């Protein structure tokens, strides 16, 4: 923990992430406006005291929409990534522990999914599953499951032959308890780093899909759909696109710094040098 506090970048990342999370959680209480109700007396108002981030073409408060939109974006990304991490890590652990054909099939499958441009895969899945919020989360889960499977498998293969794991098996621990109590804690840190990175990229995928109009459908806000909206009248009201873009960047910055910092902390070679 002391090492964590000493790593300034990780600290800044954790702080930014915490602020983003707090803003997203407190969104409905922070703002007196509705994210979807139009106000035709305040169309495309520039930033002011009443509307710190201005209003959009329906007179909706942009800050409110960003707070609600970040909620949707984050929820979609977090749900998708967590499901992908859970399924993928479990599959990878089983593959590493038991080996055999299951491992071969799993690794070929992850090779295949690794060879698709991830955004193309997301687009393809959206066509197959249908456009909409839930399906973005499903697509993100499907994109990330093989990444976690490969990560978990590669780490677990290294840990599996360690003496303490063999000791546990000699002492008659069940397979389940060896996997969950001996192997899992030892691969948890890299999985955590990957989760933070994946959530950041999941936000990008959601925003990209919604930006194209394939994701969250209007009038519901998400970071991507607000940007798509702002693109329409960028010349007259640049604040809509700009501020929602800045919001995305801040969220990504926090997550990237956090995962970077944690990774540095785990790398003993780097830690010695710092």
């Amino acid at each position, binding site marked *: 923990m002391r090492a964590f506090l000493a790593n300034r970048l990780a600290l800044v990342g954790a702080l930014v992430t915490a602020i983003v999370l707090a803003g997203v959680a407190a969104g409905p209480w922070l703002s007196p406006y509705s994210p979807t109700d139009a106000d035709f007396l305040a169309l495309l108002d520039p930033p002011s005291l009443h509307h710190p981030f201005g209003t959009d073409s329906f007179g909706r408060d942009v800050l409110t929409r960003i707070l609600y939109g970040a909620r949707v974006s984050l929820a979609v990304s977090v749900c998708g990534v967590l499901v992908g991490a859970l399924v993928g890590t479990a599959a990878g652990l089983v593959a590493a522990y038991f080996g055999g054909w299951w491992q071969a099939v799993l690794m070929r499958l992850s*090779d*295949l999914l690794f060879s698709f441009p991830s955004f193309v895969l997301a687009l393809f899945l959206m066509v197959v599953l249908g456009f909409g919020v839930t399906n973005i989360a499903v697509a993100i889960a499907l994109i990330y499951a093989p990444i976690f499977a490969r990560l978990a498998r590669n780490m677990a293969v290294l840990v599996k032959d360690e003496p303490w794991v063999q000791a546990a098996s000699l002492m008659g621990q069940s397979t389940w308890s060896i996997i969950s109590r001996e192997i899992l804690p030892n691969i948890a840190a890299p999985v955590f780093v990957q989760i933070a990175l994946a959530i950041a990229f999941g936000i990008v995928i959601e925003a990209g899909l919604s*930006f194209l109009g394939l994701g969250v459908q209007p009038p519901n806000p998400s970071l991507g759909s607000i940007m798509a909206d702002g693109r329409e009248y960028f010349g007259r009201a640049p604040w809509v696109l700009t501020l929602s873009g800045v919001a995305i960047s801040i969220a990504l910055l926090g997550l990237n710094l956090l995962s970077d910092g944690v990774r540095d902390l785990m790398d003993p070679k780097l830690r010695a040098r710092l």
Partner: protein
Amino acid sequence: MARMISIGRVSSRLGGVALLALLGSATVFFVMRAGSGDPAIAVLGEQATPEAIAAFHRKWMLDDPLVLQFWRWLSSAVMGDFGLSMTVAGGTPIMKLIASRLPNTLFIGLYAVLIAVVVSLIAGTLSALRHGKFTDTAATSLAVLGISMPDFWLSYVLVYTLALGLGIFPSYGFTPPAESIAGALYSGFLPALAIAAPMAAAFTRILRTALLETLYRDHVRVARSLGYRDAFVFVHFVLRNALIPYVTVIGLQVRYLLGGTVVVERIFGIPGVGALMVDGAFGRDYPLVQACALTFLLSVLLVNFAVDLVCAALNPRSA
């Protein structure tokens, strides 16, 4: 150098590429068919009469067993025939659409890689050599910013500042490289830069780490103590070792890069495969989406194959 790559390795890697391509085609085909929705309704509309739907199914032979459909599709796809588009211009051959657009996508992709490589070679080397100094801090902070800037958002920043603000570059439209290379380089600069920025950031970071890891190794110290010039030691003993992880990461990033073209092509109005795929997605043009997905898959597989060969050439140990 070429000697070091054995023919056996090349052919076994090619076999892997072919296997993955086959597996990919099957996955794309069956997942597409398992998905929701009847293409007939997507193309003809919700109000289509049962007769019209039946006729549509007959026309595209959608009622045959799936395995037979797959075989028919695969055997003609291997011959370069992806069938007809269901939406674009009432049945243009998909191959023709892709063939006319793939050069644009590959051009933008290659252009972006080039920008990212040039920027990262300079930034990565500088920040490793000036480790801990101002240049290093500046380059690393810029790299973190670059990663936090999704390409479609950066596109608008670039359009707003360089195109609309300063008027140096066009904000929309693209001259295909087939017409004029100079025009393509000029009109493709902003989209390529938008895709390249996050890549450049990732490449810079990996190069910096790899250089820092090799700079203080024993063989480098020995070379220096033998009196070789700094520049010579750097190029031959440090950079060459550091290039292996660097090139590997470039290969890994290719899939993000090609994914990035999808959105950026839409924003800048570039007629590429990504924009084609988005059009196909909106029109539920299954054969078109399928063919685009496969085109992207094949591009990634071939690039990774090439990267593998380059890595083997750089690293005699892995040959």
